[in-house]
């Protein structure tokens, strides 16, 4: 059972990312999009939590949302992959289920 978790809220405004990472099983995929992309950036107060999670889950960021907010891929934590909208669809199609963290 491999799941795709999606997070679209800023980690500084809501606990969605923290709760998602605390509940995601080993091997799960986590996609950060919309304001969720702030959780993938380096040097933030949330970075340590995400870095710890990267050991057991795969983390993706939606490139279009990253770019819209003024950040390049070079600002992401090591180990995070960038996908486009097509990649988002692929991740959803590959997963057994999608779970949204609002």
């Amino acid at each position: 059972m491999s799941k795709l978790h999606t997070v679209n809220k800023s980690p500084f405004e809501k606990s969605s990312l923290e709760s998602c990472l605390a509940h995601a099983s080993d091997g799960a995929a986590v996609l950060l999009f919309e304001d969720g992309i702030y959780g993938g950036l380096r040097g933030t107060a949330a970075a340590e939590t995400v870095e710890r999670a990267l050991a057991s889950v795969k983390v993706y960021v939606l490139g279009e949302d990253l770019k819209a907010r003024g950040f390049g891929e070079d600002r992401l934590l090591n180990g995070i992959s960038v996908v486009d909208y097509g990649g988002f669809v692929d991740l959803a199609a590959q997963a057994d289920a999608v779970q949204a963290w609002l």
Partner: protein
Amino acid sequence: MSATVKKFLYLNRKAPYGTIYAWESLEVVLIGAAFDQDVSLAFVDDGVYQLTKGQETAGIGMKNFSPTYAALGDYEVTKIFVEQESLQERGLSLDDLQHLVWEDEDEDYAEKDSIALVSRAEMAALMDESDVVFSF
């Protein structure tokens, strides 16, 4: 000029695009600029993300309203306060933000910085000194 000039503070605490707050705030500030009041803008918490440079929104199909911040000086909105701690928590520095300026007509249109970096304590004092706080 009206008899009583009130100190207005627009408090911005939301990231752009994810919600409508940032854009709405900017609209209200521009409308409010038509009235002669003492206007200050505060960017706190995720609000600091509104000012990042290099925003390109074509990919998400939304209007990129970030260039509008650069026009605030022309509307005599010249006091923009950014909280240092909010930047730090997000791994950001002043270099990640747009360089916003205004022209001082009393000093031969000298270009001056609009953004002032302030501490959380200074931001708290700014809030206390304001007559009206508009929250976004």
